[in-house]
């Protein structure tokens, strides 16, 4: 770029060109989306198949979501080091995904603890939940639990995906989030076994497909 006297049109052209160059530089590798898309889809499908074919899994398959945090941290550090331009919205979007992760763990904690707490409080008041078999009339103790909690997980998946899609104007994520909200509504009418299938669909729509698209775009852009 050589120095010369600028006309107003040239100044305007430089400003427009450079702003566009900065904007178009945003290249998301899609690796994080791929990772979570694969993990959630896999866990959802295995859980659904276990429900369908009455498999006895020796461990909770959803533990994989905890293990996936390790490669996720590694991916984050590696990509952050490679990033030559830091965009204005990257910190805000990063914060959205961190808050999402915190909320996922908070919900898992809630799901696991609230039954015991409710049972304890009921016991202290001399009460307990009962369930009655309509056919036989048999009455037995019912341990308190959170009803249809998997629907809440599905609803949470859509939130950061929709925000990212809207901020980045990335249609696959917007569509993925919409599909996930539909899955959430359907899950309110299905039992927990079929909710697992809806988890798999949500994982595919929210992250797996957008992740594949982002990864392909990144590979094409970096190959040039």
């Amino acid at each position: 770029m050589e120095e010369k006297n600028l006309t107003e049109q040239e100044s305007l052209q430089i400003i427009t060109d450079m702003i566009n160059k900065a904007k178009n530089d945003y290249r998301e590798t899609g690796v994080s989306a791929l990772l979570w898309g694969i993990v959630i889809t896999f866990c959802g499908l295995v859980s659904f198949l276990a429900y369908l074919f009455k498999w006895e899994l020796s461990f909770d398959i959803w533990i994989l979501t905890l293990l996936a945090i390790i490669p996720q941290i590694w991916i984050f550090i590696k990509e952050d080091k490679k990033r030559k331009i830091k965009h204005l919205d990257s910190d805000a979007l990063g914060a959205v995904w961190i808050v999402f992760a915190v909320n996922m763990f908070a919900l898992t904690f809630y799901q696991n603890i609230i039954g015991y707490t409710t049972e304890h409080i009921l016991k202290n008041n001399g009460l307990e939940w009962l369930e009655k078999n309509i056919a036989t009339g048999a009455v037995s103790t019912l341990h308190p639990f959170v009803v249809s909690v998997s629907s809440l997980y599905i609803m949470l998946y859509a939130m950061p995906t929709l925000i990212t899609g809207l901020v980045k104007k990335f249609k696959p994520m917007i569509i993925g989030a919409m599909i996930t909200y539909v899955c959430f509504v359907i899950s309110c009418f299905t039992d927990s076994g079929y909710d697992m299938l809806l988890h798999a669909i949500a994982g595919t729509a929210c992250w797996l497909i957008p992740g594949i698209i982002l990864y392909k775009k990144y590979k094409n852009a970096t190959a040039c």
Partner: protein
Amino acid sequence: MFKDLDPILHSQLRLAVMSLLIGVKEAEFTVIREKTNATAGNLSVQVQKLKDAGYIDVTKQFKDNYPLTTCKITKKGIEAFEDYVKSLQQYLQVKK
């Protein structure tokens, strides 16, 4: 010829650097050079002028044993850039 425009910004390369930095949080020197198609020597001189004017912050550090220079627009730089664009708009309106 513009008379009221900020002379620091009214330069092809300096304006390009500021236009790039206005839309991002920060950018590495190598990326600015790549985007502006400038030589490293010329860009260094113009970046120093913007830094001296208080329009950008320049951070020098080492990454994997290589020097890494990062540029970031300052509040003063944002105000100067906005004033420059306003003056430009006024000038264009007068010309219409």
